[in-house]
């Protein structure tokens, strides 16, 4: 199943793109797919199917998610961003 991944800030810098499609029915599967395709993103932000500390995932602009088994549905957008929203 393909979902949309939107990247912001450092994740966008590392991946070199703002948006992509990724395969997976769960959060960890999508992150593993991203890690495989974007090694620099993986190095900075992803470890063992989880986001490293300092980064957050948000589903459809609605809720933040971290449980690797979080189910994703076709048409979902997964946002990956820096955790620190201070400014």
């Amino acid at each position, binding site marked *: 199943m393909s979902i949309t991944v*939107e990247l*912001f*800030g*450092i994740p*966008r*810098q590392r991946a070199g793109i*703002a948006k992509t499609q990724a395969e997976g029915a769960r959060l960890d599967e999508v992150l593993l797919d991203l890690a495989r395709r974007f090694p620099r993103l993986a190095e*900075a932000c992803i470890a063992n199917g989880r986001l*490293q*500390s*300092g980064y*957050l995932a*948000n589903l459809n*602009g609605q*809720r*933040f*998610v*971290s449980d690797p088994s979080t189910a994703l549905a076709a048409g979902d957008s997964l*946002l990956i*961003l*820096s*955790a*620190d*929203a*201070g*400014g």
Partner: protein
Amino acid sequence: MPSHHPGPPGYHGCYLRIDVGKQCAERVGLAEVELRKFLGGSGLGVHLMLREGSHQVDPLSPEAPLAFVFSPLVGSPLTTSAKFAVVSRSPLTERINDSLASSHFAIAGKRAGCDAIVLVGRADTPSILIIDEGQIRIEAAGELWGLSCRDAETQLRARLGNEYQIATIGPAGERLVRYATISHDGRHAGRGGSGAVLGSKHIKAIAVRGSQRARLAEPAQLVALAKQLSDKSFGPATAKYRELGTAANLLVFNRLGALPTRNFQQGTFKAAEALSPEQMTQTRAKTRASCAACTIGCEHIYGFRGGDNQPGVRMEYENLFALGPLCGISDPDVVLGASRVCDELGLDTISAGGTIAFAMECVERGLLDAPWLKFGDGNALHRALHEVGRREGLGALMAEGSRRMAKSIGSDALTFAPQVKGLEMPGYEPRALQTMALGFAVGTRGADHNRSGAYEVDFSERVDRRQPGLEAAGMAVETEDKAALMDSLILCKFLRGVFTDFLAEAAEMLNLVTGWDTTPDELRATARRIVTAKKHFNILCGWQPAEDTLPERFLNHPLPDDPTATLTPERLQGLVAAYNTARGWSSEGWPTRGQIAELG
């Protein structure tokens, strides 16, 4: 000057109290117990305001005290510690104001042999204050009066020599704009109008030099700890600040519908991408800078497209949002130019953008007769800033801030003036980030993102940011306590991500500097005391529970571009009561007698 006890390590044990009218100074002792209770920076600043009776006088009167407060960590090898707090009663809010700035002024000020400099009085004519090793003299400002912050600093340094560190006001401070800043080396103690307080004393600039270092209790161990902290500061927790700066918030906030746009009429801005640092980095030259003694370097300085011989402009999220989407501006060069104008005039960008955006909406609604002042019009934004900085035309009204302006306009203007307690809101749409809405409502200096980090709760799985439960209140308290400690120790908040156990690590730093045996529990209690002291100050100024709310726009109207982002008055009131209870105050927000007595 009378002698005083030298104070514990990390301190000088006194503040320098200067009457700029009488042109005299005295060293006033600070007991170790006071220092341990309030640390430095914001905490010691509010203590000094209470001690000096600042609440009893108009903030722009000659008697009003204005404090530049250093901290135990200033001058230590710890990264990001070269900071100072400027504390007074705010001319904008009439409540406590503590604004922080960075760099060499903090180090030089402390080396003048004091833990704070408190100014009272008013010079007869525009003047500069020179503090040389704790000895003072007042000189005529002469041709410096009227200059921009940067030009005044450059010319005064050329006159006095490079060993002096200089803080100045711009034309806005001279004209008592209620959100004028105090600037040092391009950085500003920005919020709440401390520049107007200095201007009311007829002081254009303070130049300070000194060589008196406070001793450190355990210098060797402190150097080792500082090295570890610096190493951590190069890691992933600060990557966002190093590589993109705070401006990286823009696209995230826009995607989450939390980017205040057109005076908070929307939470998204169509042209956000063009203003983002991700985009701007590709289209224009950029350099990086950092405050003194900082290993992070979050300052990203952008050049103008196509050159422009002018120096670049520091771009932070707050000036980007306030002078961009909030005013409907989508051209990065206009926003950069407006930021530079604010820097030169010495204007708080958030209050300037907030007040002008409010005026733009007033024009749209037919409440103000200024057809030139339109959302999205870059020339109008620049004209408005210049008028504010010089109090010319409509600027005379806008210089008062959005709350006073709304009261003067009448009708329903106050319902959409973007402020709490008179302080214009920073770039966090409170209907989309409702724990932050609570942080704004209860903030002792008004709507504020530096004294409350409640947005961190919204950016987590712990709450539903559009519908937080009452448990969010306790989490908001935690973020406020952490901010109170960081602002008093002082450490830069952009370092906060590197700590695994902040209270324990902060206690270790403080103990190595001072020789104390502070524990995490003591620091937690210290943070709560500092927040209560600010609340107590506000109560003495006339605070009432009804102040702890948001303008009606945010309470009775959903966000038009996200109807699920609706904050009801009942939810906000419930959160405020839960917050007060979590602080150990009455549910309305009154501290107990015991809590007040403990401040003494």
